[in-house]
């Protein structure tokens, strides 16, 4: 096991670099998750990370903890099996928006309903990154992707609405708002029940550059300008980030 101190102790430093493209936002989310682990001093023995398939899903293998890289969309039921088998474990899911909201969407609905005490961190990059840039459940209306050459005809999933009327935790944050992201993840890990963090992050190679961004820094600046923090809302507006602990 890694002998580092601080957040780095949660990473398999020897395995770096990750397979991600230069400028990819996934590394920011990965690092912030480890910082949240560090802040809470989560025991390395006793914490398990579970992921699905996709660029984001590859995160699991970089944690210096026991981790499971499941099939596409199946991270949540595997994580629930782990948690119900051993309640003493901290179980954290890390995966992409396509994985968690698309192919795995039905599992998410029911994990919310069961209020399983696990934390899900969704790397929401608005695209299917790994497969080359097809429309995903969070792609905004009108956006051109490989499979929507005339612009996305559908509305993106309103993820927070899934949590309404359930005694769960939902937060939205972005890769620009580092302290906010850390807070969202830390609070989620502390929450007793199902918690979900929608971390907006950038896929420059298979998304941003096609939309005209020159580099991922420009995408970060867009987050900075577009999103306002609102941590006391019961519902977040489209341009807001914040934490909602659903009313019971």
């Amino acid at each position, binding site marked *: 096991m890694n002998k580092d101190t601080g957040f780095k102790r949660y990473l398999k430093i020897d395995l770096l670099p990750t397979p991600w493209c230069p400028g990819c936002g996934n590394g920011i989310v990965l690092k912030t998750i480890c910082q949240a682990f560090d802040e809470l001093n989560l025991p390395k023995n006793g914490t398990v990370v579970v992921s699905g398939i996709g660029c984001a899903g590859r995160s699991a293998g970089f944690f210096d903890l026991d981790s499971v890289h499941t099939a596409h969309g199946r991270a949540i039921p595997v994580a629930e099996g782990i948690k*119900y088998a051993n309640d003493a474990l901290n179980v954290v899911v890390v995966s992409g928006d396509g994985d968690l909201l698309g192919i795995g969407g039905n599992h998410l609905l029911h994990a919310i309903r069961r209020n399983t005490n696990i934390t899900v961190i969704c790397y929401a990059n608005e695209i299917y990154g790994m497969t080359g840039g097809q429309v995903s459940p969070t792609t905004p209306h009108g956006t051109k992707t490989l499979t929507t050459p005339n612009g996305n005809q559908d509305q993106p999933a309103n993820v927070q609405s899934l949590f309404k009327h359930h005694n769960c935790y939902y937060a939205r944050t972005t890769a620009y708002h580092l302290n906010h992201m850390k807070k969202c993840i830390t609070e989620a890990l502390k929450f007793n029940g199902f918690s979900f963090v929608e971390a907006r992050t950038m896929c420059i190679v298979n998304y941003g550059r096609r939309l005209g961004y020159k580099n991922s820094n420009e995408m970060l600046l867009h987050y900075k300008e577009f999103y306002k923090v609102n941590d006391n809302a019961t519902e977040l507006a489209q341009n807001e980030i914040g934490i909602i602990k659903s009313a019971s």
Partner: protein
Amino acid sequence: MPKQLLQGNQAIAMAAEVAGLKFFAGYPITPASEIIHEMVNKKHIKVLQMEDEIASLNAVIGASLAGLKAMTATSGPGFSLMQESIGLAHMMEVPLVIVNVQRVGPSTGMPTLPAQGDVIQCIHGSHGDYFPIVFYPNSVFELYKFTVNAFNAAEESMSPVILLSDGYISHLYETIIPHRDFDIKKRDRQPLGAGNRHFTGLSHEDSLPKTSDIDNYRRLITRLHEKQQLTAQRYNDYEYIECSKDTDTLLISYGALSRIAYHFKDTFSLYRPIRMFPVVEEIKIIAPRYKRIIIMEMNTGQYAHEIERILHREVEFIPILGGRIDLVEINQKLLGVNHDRRP
């Protein structure tokens, strides 16, 4: 140990508990639902009714990695949904048991009628090459015994083991002595939360994903294959009844249908595989003694093709379709000659 009148599915649930089952996840389906109904009344077993069979098997995988003996039970439609995760469990080497109580397919088919149409799906249903151990008992006592064996074989091979049943034997009531005289295998791996291991469906070496190392992939598949063969050898289960009279014919059948085959034991020699896969090698020694081999099964020749492949010779076969097991009809079919390949 007193005798008990048990239904096949009840015997499976009872034996699972004897084998050390601690976690069950499933989704209702005829003719397997009695298994989950039994499970919810057991004190030391965590039971989850999931949103579908995909979630069920994935929860079982998670629970098994977390250190518990775990299982699920379903029928054809659910077994189809589980195929993706069966491949995952082979790749990640997760011990667990899947019961498939077969009913008439394809699709929703005839839910209340028994069939044997999922035999080949057991070994080829998921993509890629994998080498599952599959048992198919033919009585309530055998369901009991081979449920325990399935759990043991799962621990020995660190892989998902399939217990086939059918709507007939799972709903059959028989008196059995549910003894506990088994050697129960323990888990030979630390549960999740004990290290920095990485379990992945990607090709890998130990904890490292190796997505383009071809030699490593070949080594991995060879190791997985050999491991399955080695465990299977400890369960060379089959039944062979040599005909008391002279006969040149061997009648092969299994599961529900093999029960009616006993009726012909004075006409033909009988052979019944119990460990369906990997195919028990003894058939290669027994078969050459007979000029004719007839395979009778409740599908259009799934195991017949497998036997032909293994024996390198043609066999005759009799498909018994649609869930009807009728002695008069079977008698007619068996005593006719030239069984052809039309259903």
